[in-house]
């Protein structure tokens, strides 16, 4: 295969655009790699055209499952993309400069997750042309209003945070104006890091609050502090716990695919340590919340925990979320021995990311699946192929942007010295 590729004629040489001191594959090989995200984006386009032209009847959602796989993916990627704001916060505001070599990657991944989520939400609403009503006719009491404002403004902040990496491209930075602009952006980046932290903190919480305030949906409803249900705080904690894990995982996967070292293992270990301890804190609160919900909240409403877990959404979901993909990765990541091992750290981070995705899944799907009226039927839901097409946008768009960024932008400042 490699020989065949080597024999291909050289049509173009883009090496002058590569980051300083790095090597990338030949353009022809890169084009072949691009086939993967482009295929996913083509699949997305078919689903998007069908849903926009014919309506959301192309999905398998219905009046019982008002939310489907798109909301699950949205919530999951926004949680996983939280590495952007939290790593920026630690680097620029707390002064944890050891994280500097991974901040660019975290911001890039955050940008992909947020922009992907916003694009998907544009199709998820029944009247996409009225999307701006949420800003114009904003209902200040709605958690969703806050989510709409914050994810949109935070996507803009992420774009600004990403801009210096684009302007630092070897060729672009030769233009003096761009170089100066980039330098000035670097000096004020702390302002955007602070803005991003503020915005992200609130919408991560509001995404959780969205479910906690559904007081007539016993699976999701929670008490809370003031106007904020406990899920508000749990979603923030879980997002900042797994965000660094997801960022590190993506870097590790890129290292394996490209065959190049991108950041020192000590940086990854630090990310793992942050993730691990935050996950422990989150799991303490999550376990307490679950116990309180099971033994106090549900009985107060005349319900039992058993009634909340019905096939196919049985108790196994709870054990997998809290045990296998909650406490286990938390306890793994706080151990230095585990973090020192490339493979074990990856496994722990993967479990943590699955756990949080599962958490978003149960809050979205299981909350709606359980009939509340005693004489109501139980319905199940499986997404249609059009829904999977639109859900694949995040992956397709993410791969495309990440591949282009890895090839042309100085995302990993330690790469040249690590691969000398």
């Amino acid at each position, binding site marked *: 295969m490699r020989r065949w590729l080597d024999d291909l004629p050289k049509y173009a040489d883009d090496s002058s655009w590569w980051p300083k001191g790095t090597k990338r594959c030949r353009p022809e090989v890169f084009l072949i790699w691009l086939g993967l995200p482009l295929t996913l984006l083509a699949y997305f386009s078919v689903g998007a055209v069908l849903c926009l032209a014919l*309506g*959301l*009847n192309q999905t398998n*959602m*219905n*009046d*019982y499952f*008002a*939310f489907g796989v798109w909301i699950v993916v949205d919530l999951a990627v926004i949680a996983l993309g939280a590495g952007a704001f939290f790593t920026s916060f630690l680097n620029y505001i707390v002064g944890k400069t050891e994280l500097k070599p991974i901040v660019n990657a975290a911001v890039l991944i955050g940008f992909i997750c947020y922009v992907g989520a916003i694009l998907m939400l544009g199709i*998820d*609403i*029944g*009247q996409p042309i*009225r*999307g701006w*009503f*949420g800003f114009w*006719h*904003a*209902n200040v*009491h*709605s*958690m*969703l*209003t806050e*989510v*709409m404002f914050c994810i949109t403004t935070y996507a803009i902040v992420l774009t600004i945070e990403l801009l210096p990496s684009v302007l630092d491209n070897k060729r672009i930075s030769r233009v003096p104006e761009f170089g100066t602009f980039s330098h000035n952006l670097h000096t004020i980046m702390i302002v955007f890091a602070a803005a991003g932290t503020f915005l992200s903190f609130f919408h991560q919480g509001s995404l959780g609050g*969205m479910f906690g*305030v*559904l*007081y*007539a*949906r*016993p699976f999701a*409803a929670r*008490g*809370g502090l*003031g*106007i904020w*249900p406990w899920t508000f705080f749990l979603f923030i904690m879980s997002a900042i716990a797994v965000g660094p894990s997801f960022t590190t995982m993506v870097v590790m996967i890129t290292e394996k695919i490209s065959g190049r070292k991108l950041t020192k293992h000590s940086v990854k270990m630090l990310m793992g340590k942050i993730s691990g301890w935050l996950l422990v804190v989150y799991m303490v609160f999550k376990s307490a919340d679950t116990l309180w919900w099971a033994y106090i*909240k549900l009985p*107060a*409403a*005349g319900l039992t925990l058993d009634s909340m877990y019905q096939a196919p959404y049985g108790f196994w979901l709870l054990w997998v979320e809290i045990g296998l993909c909650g406490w286990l990765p938390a306890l793994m990541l706080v151990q230095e021995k585990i973090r020192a091992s490339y493979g074990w750290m990856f496994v722990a981070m993967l479990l943590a990311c699955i756990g949080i995705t599962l958490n978003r899944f149960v809050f979205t799907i299981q*909350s*709606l699946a359980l009939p*509340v*009226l*005693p*004489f*109501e039927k139980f*319905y199940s839901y499986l997404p249609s192929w059009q829904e999977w097409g639109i859900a694949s946008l995040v992956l397709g768009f993410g791969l495309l942007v990440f591949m282009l960024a890895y090839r042309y932008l100085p995302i990993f400042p330690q790469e040249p010295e690590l691969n000398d």
Partner: protein
Amino acid sequence: MVIDLDKCTGCGACSVACMSENNIGVLHNETDKIRSITWMRVYQIDNGKAFPDTEVAFIPRPCMHCQGGKSGTPGQAFFQEGPMDEAAHPPCVSVCPATATDYDEDTGIVSQIPTRCIGCRYCVAACPYHARYFNWYDVPWPKGSPRALSPFVSPRMRGVVEKCTFCFQRYQAARNKAMVSGGEVGEMDYQTACTEACPSGAITFGQLQNPEHKVHKLISSDYTFRLLERLHTNPKVYYMSKREWVRKMADNYVTRHNKFAQAAAQSGH
């Protein structure tokens, strides 16, 4: 509204009248009940016993026009404790990001503004009664049928949520009439289409807090209950049945004392 389940025969006249009054379209496939639109849906329940002890009841279910908030005590409620405890707080209203639904403190009606709705379906997720419907399809109005539509209710477009409004257009007409005549809206001046259509007189409509109105007397009966009282949605639709299994099936385990405390805090229709 009070619905006497012992009088309801499940004939569906209320649903049909509602569809006609409120310009609800008929879809190509009306057997797909989790996507079709029925503001007034009639559920069938039974006591689970074998013949000859089988008993059947029908539960017509319009929008409950929940008041939320004021019901029960905050400590007992499945409800966010906080400053909003004092205000009306239906499950579906505060969640709407675009203010496309509202609670009218005068009438107690939960409104819906389809032209404002962005179709996020958050309110559909919030409603435990499944009283909110999303327009998954364009309504295939047969040729000529739009001429038979009511001019007082706008048909809804694909991609928005709609629900029972307690025939709000009828309230507007009654209010206008009262304004011209200088009087007040009387009990019989404002009746919903389903109330008028019910052949067995199972549905009674009026102002819950007005001692002159029949519904006010009916809700103080020992046999009235509401759906999902424990969740403290504080609905304005009451049901009546002398059959205990029917009342239990509706999840009515709230004590008699609490029921009257909640009814006293109720307002509107």
